[in-house]
């Protein structure tokens, strides 16, 4: 019987060796692509399917039950006689903590990445020591494994700009799985399979003649060794709160290219929309914003609809702070303009935004007034008009008694320190947007300075120390009086206004996590920590929880990480040059286990929380008719 063995020497011939290796290295990629042909592969990916990861928006079930308004308990004060707030909580409990090497942090984002939960902590400008390498690095993005929320593990830090710190910061992060992003070919699907991609703003508002801000994509599949994949767009003058739809790849980048001559008041930024289905090869779609911001619009004087968004705000319209897309199924984008003043919220038809440029080359970068108005379904201004801004606008699609009822949670941003005289307490509002053309505020509280039940008094006694701004109608607002300052005046009441730094609303959670969706509104309040409201009856929202971290509760190690000694909170300075350590809870966010993550602007670190008591029971629907929590206070 003849031998069937091939001679080894023949196998080692270069041509055959090359063919064999090519077969081994390339073929599996096509095999794995299988017959998905560009469709997402959620069998391999464990990320949720609600926005921003997917388009499956939960349905909230609102009711009209009358529940008791709860009185939040007063915070605990430190025992050192300084009048400083100690860690205080109500229906919330601290689960885990990390110093983040003392870096100022804007936004937490926690992504289910395979079998792990990875926290992407997006930092403000600054520098700090990376505990992993001992190097001083410009603030960028910290990655932590929070699979065990009790024991976060610091994985890596992606530094930001190496230039001056006022040009720096990487405040915003979004992460998509390559298995969820759509693909236009099998080769693209195979290339992205098993990968995760981080979209981040790079730099913020340098103010330089030749701007340096960019938008970047990193491959974060190896969370200990992220790799810069591409710069989507550079030479931007501003960046901020992006949004990325993972199931479509559409990214709404907050930015401005000054050479394109868009016009804005306040934050000079609008949207630059890209398709990032293939993160290595960004596809530009168009620029968009509020009508009146397109090139050639008026930059001063009175401006009324339809040329601008309304006579009550400013010309040109305020820049956008951040969009939230409800995805392809709901086909809506919610746009908050104005940050902390002259706020406007706009509701857009998503498909019209993406597809309504009839002559794309001109429309994309320099649209007409008609191009700008075509996708607009509605807009509204906020109570106090110029005194409140649009920071976040989070939609809740629901029903009540079998009829559609949609609600929008809107926040303003407090921008001044220590309740500046003449400024309004910045707050959160609920709007009924079932009729998009006629949004109306709900959960109104006529006794509140900002006319809303979703507000936090500056006084530890639960009262506001404000006066009227002297205006009537939509322009009415309560404002902090001059007599509340100087803060060191012994006649002033002890409260949140003399804790240092900012006190007021900032951001609301933005993930459509079903168990909390339509039940809770969770918002950051700077020196007031994080605040939670029960919104199951959206006409009668009620406070139901809070957590205020304490400054410097964990020592900040000289080479990163925790250690004994002074804590991580930066010294913040009040108007009277008194230096204080103030908690500055900046953004809250959820993961799909219901944990709540806090980022601190003053460098205090990351706090991981869970709901307890009445807040937990509200989520579980286990509290009606037996909720008698009129204020319970935990001390830690």
């Amino acid at each position: 019987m003849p031998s069937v063995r091939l001679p080894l020497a023949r196998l080692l011939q270069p041509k055959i060796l090359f063919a064999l290796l090519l077969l081994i290295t390339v073929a599996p990629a096509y095999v794995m692509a299988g017959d998905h042909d560009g469709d997402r592969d959620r069998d391999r990916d464990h990320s949720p399917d609600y926005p921003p990861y997917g388009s499956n928006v939960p349905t909230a079930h609102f009711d009209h039950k009358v529940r008791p308004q709860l009185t939040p308990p007063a915070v605990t004060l430190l025992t050192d006689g300084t009048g400083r707030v100690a860690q205080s909580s109500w229906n919330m409990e601290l689960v885990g903590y990390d110093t983040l090497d003392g870096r100022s942090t804007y936004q937490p984002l926690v992504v289910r990445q395979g079998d792990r939960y990875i926290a992407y902590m997006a930092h403000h400008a600054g520098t700090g020591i990376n505990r992993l390498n001992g190097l001083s690095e410009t603030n960028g993005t910290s990655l932590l494994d929070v699979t065990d929320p009790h024991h976060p593990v610091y994985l890596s830090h992606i530094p930001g700009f190496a230039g001056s710190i006022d040009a720096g910061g990487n405040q915003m992060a979004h992460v998509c799985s390559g298995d969820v992003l759509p693909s236009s070919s099998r080769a693209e699907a195979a290339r992205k399979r098993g990968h995760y991609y981080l979209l981040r703003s790079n730099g913020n508002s340098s103010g330089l003649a030749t701007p340096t801000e960019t938008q970047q994509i990193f491959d974060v599949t190896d969370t200990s060794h992220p790799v810069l994949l591409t710069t989507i767009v550079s030479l931007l003058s501003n960046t901020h709160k992006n949004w990325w739809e993972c199931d479509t790849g559409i990214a709404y980048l907050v930015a401005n290219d000054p050479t394109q001559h868009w016009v804005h008041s306040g934050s000079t930024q609008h949207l630059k929309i890209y398709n990032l289905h293939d993160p290595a090869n960004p596809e530009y779609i168009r620029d968009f914003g509020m009508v009146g911001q397109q090139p050639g619009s008026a930059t001063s004087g009175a401006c009324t609809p339809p040329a601008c968004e309304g006579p009550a705000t400013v010309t040109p319209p305020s820049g956008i702070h951040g969009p939230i897309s409800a995805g392809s199924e709901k086909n809506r984008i919610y746009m908050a303009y104005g940050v902390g003043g002259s706020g406007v919220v706009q509701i857009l038809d998503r498909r019209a935004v993406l597809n309504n440029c009839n002559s794309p080359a001109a429309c994309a970068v320099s649209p007409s007034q008609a191009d700008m108005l075509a996708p607009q379904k509605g807009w509204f201004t906020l109570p106090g008009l110029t005194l409140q801004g649009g920071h976040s606008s989070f939609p809740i699609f629901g029903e009540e008694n079998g009829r559609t009822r949609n609600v929008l949670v809107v926040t303003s941003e407090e921008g001044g320190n220590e309740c500046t005289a003449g400024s309004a307490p910045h707050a959160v509002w609920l709007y009924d947007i079932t009729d998009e053309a006629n949004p109306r505020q709900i959960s109104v509280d006529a006794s509140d300075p900002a006319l809303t039940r979703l507000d936090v008094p500056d006084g530890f006694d639960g009262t506001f120390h404000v006066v009227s701004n002297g205006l009537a109608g939509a322009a009415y607002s309560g404002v902090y009086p001059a007599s509340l300052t100087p803060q060191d005046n012994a006649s002033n009441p002890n409260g949140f206004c003399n804790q240092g730094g900012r006190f007021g609303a900032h951001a609301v959670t933005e993930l459509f996590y079903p168990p909390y969706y339509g039940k809770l509104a969770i918002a950051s309040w700077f020196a007031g920590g994080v605040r939670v409201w029960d919104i199951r009856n959206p006409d009668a929202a009620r406070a139901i929880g809070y957590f205020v971290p304490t400054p410097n509760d964990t020592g900040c190690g000289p080479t990163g990480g925790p250690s004994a000694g002074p804590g991580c909170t930066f010294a913040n300075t009040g108007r009277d040059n008194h230096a204080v350590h103030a908690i500055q809870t900046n953004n809250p966010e959820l993961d799909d286990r219901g944990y709540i993550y806090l980022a601190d602007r003053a460098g205090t670190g990351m706090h991981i929380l869970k709901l307890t008591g009445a807040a937990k029971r509200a989520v579980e629907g286990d509290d009606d008719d037996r909720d008698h929590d009129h204020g319970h206070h935990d001390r830690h």
Partner: protein
Amino acid sequence: MKYACILIALCFAPYAFAGTPDAPKSAAFTTNDVTMEMIAKIKVGDTTGSQIKELLGTPWRTNNYGDCNVVDYQETWEYLGHDANGRFKISIEFDEAGIARIVAKTPAKGPVVVLAAAPKPVTQHQH
């Protein structure tokens, strides 16, 4: 041989994007303690950031809260030191011109203490 070269190139192609022009940078850092004698040389309203770097070295940590507009300015540098009570922090806040405006000390335990302060500008951007 040419096949081997092609093969090697193919294997390493996915990593070609790793080195990009705006790859972030890091700098070595040593935690040199500062002394109160060194801190006393800082004159609020006069000493610049570059002069402070000459005097104290690279800051242990820096911060700038501004996130919406460059005029929302609040840049702070921090240094570490030791005294009889343990480690302390020195915080130096700058005005928009880059001049030291406030110098404060945070001891190992207890509230922060202002060591020197220049008047704050009357107008402050709010948003």
